[in-house]
């Protein structure tokens, strides 16, 4: 049973801001509802006024603009992202990450913006957005601001969003040319589960030098980009030494917990295994 609720479905951003102002922290945005309704049922979520944003046309945007990048509106479903051949080719790390979220049926409702606003440490789209250096466009009655995704998450299920603010869209800039992106996710079963550990990687050439970006899910209170590991890979040495240095640094920066999906020790080991696997692939492909 869901708790007692109120519901509204504004058609414009202005109407949305009015509702948010009226209900403040009692209001919660409803898009796909695949996380929110479960949290309400479990009484984890305390909000009691749901604001359905699916009728707001402006939030439905999924488009790519050369130079600016990819814009993913707040109500764009995971299904639409997967069906985009452009995203599959230009942003493979994002496409692969989205592919692993939930199942085919959930993807008809679940949204990418919902995945980041829910701010689970296990949010699969987050590591991909971190290595792609995406920005989050936030709007409110007062105006708008744009925040890099690595400043967006502040804790387990916590973001920088303030009362009255809404994520309008995520903007994913052009990836470096000839880059290679992958998301490796370890699950208990092959079809559908939260990540025990997930690793997103982006490899590209800067001049002749191979550069990498690394970000993780399910290893810390928030999805985490580990720049120190990226830098450790960049320094001198044989390719094998560079990979092992990055693996060591990455494993020192994570702080995994034990839960139903795996122990902290197992997660720590997976961080090493998956980081090594990913870096080897990048060395081969990029």
């Amino acid at each position, binding site marked *: 049973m869901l708790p007692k*609720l109120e519901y509204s*479905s504004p058609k414009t951003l202005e109407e949305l801001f009015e509702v948010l102002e009226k209900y403040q922290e009692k209001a919660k945005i409803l898009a*796909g509802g695949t996380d929110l*309704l479960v949290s309400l049922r479990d009484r984890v979520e305390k909000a009691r006024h749901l604001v359905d944003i699916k009728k707001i046309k402006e939030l439905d945007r999924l488009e790519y603009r050369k130079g600016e990048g990819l814009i993913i509106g707040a109500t764009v479903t995971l299904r639409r992202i997967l069906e985009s051949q452009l995203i599959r080719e230009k942003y493979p790390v994002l496409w692969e990450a989205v592919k692993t979220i*939930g*199942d*085919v*049926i959930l993807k008809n409702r679940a949204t990418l913006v919902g995945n980041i606003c829910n701010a689970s440490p296990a949010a699969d789209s987050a590591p991909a957005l971190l290595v792609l250096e995406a920005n989050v466009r936030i709007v409110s009655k007062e105006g708008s601001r744009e925040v890099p995704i690595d400043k967006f998450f502040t804790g387990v299920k916590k973001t920088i969003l303030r009362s009255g603010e809404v994520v309008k869209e995520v903007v994913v800039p052009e990836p470096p040319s000839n880059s290679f992106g992958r998301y490796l996710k370890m699950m208990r079963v092959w079809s559908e589960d939260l990540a025990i550990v997930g690793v997103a990687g982006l490899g590209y050439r800067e001049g002749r030098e191979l550069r990498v970006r690394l970000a993780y899910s399910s290893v810390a209170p928030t999805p985490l980009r580990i720049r120190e590991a990226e830098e450790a890979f960049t320094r001198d040495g044989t390719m094998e030494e560079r990979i092992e240095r990055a693996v060591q640094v990455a494993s020192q920066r994570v702080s995994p917990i034990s839960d139903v999906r795996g122990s902290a020790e197992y997660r720590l080991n997976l961080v090493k295994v998956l980081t090594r696997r990913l870096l080897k692939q990048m060395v081969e492909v990029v």
Partner: protein
Amino acid sequence: MEKKKITFKINGVEKTVEVAPNKTLLWLIREELKLKGTKKACERGDCGLCTVLLNGEPVKSCLVLAVEVDGSEIVTVEGLSRDGELTELQKAFIEHGALQCGFCTPAFLIVGHWLINRNPRPSKEEVVEALNGLLCRCTGYRPIIEAILSVSKAKK
């Protein structure tokens, strides 16, 4: 809690009802409209047994609010057959023994119909992928997959 008036089509029939905002689409189907083919089990989007078509696409009806379906079209397992005649897929489920206790069967039929409609000749991998949000605890999935594939081949 103020009730909202919603109008929608279910299995081709237009309905207008008043619902409280905390009721799910699953509740609307089973308790308000008394269509018991759609099953209630985990109520948290894991098992998929409450899956129905909403505007032609499968959704887990325990994760959709009834108030969200205002103006929409819904198809449940009761809406698949025409004039008492089972569909090819329903017949194939019987022929392949693709059910045992039958509790999950409505959801598999809904997703099977959706898949065959949009992709008349799916590969085995595509069938498996489409079904990965649904749980069956008795037959195993093999006869279900074979039933769906047999219909896709029949459409050659």
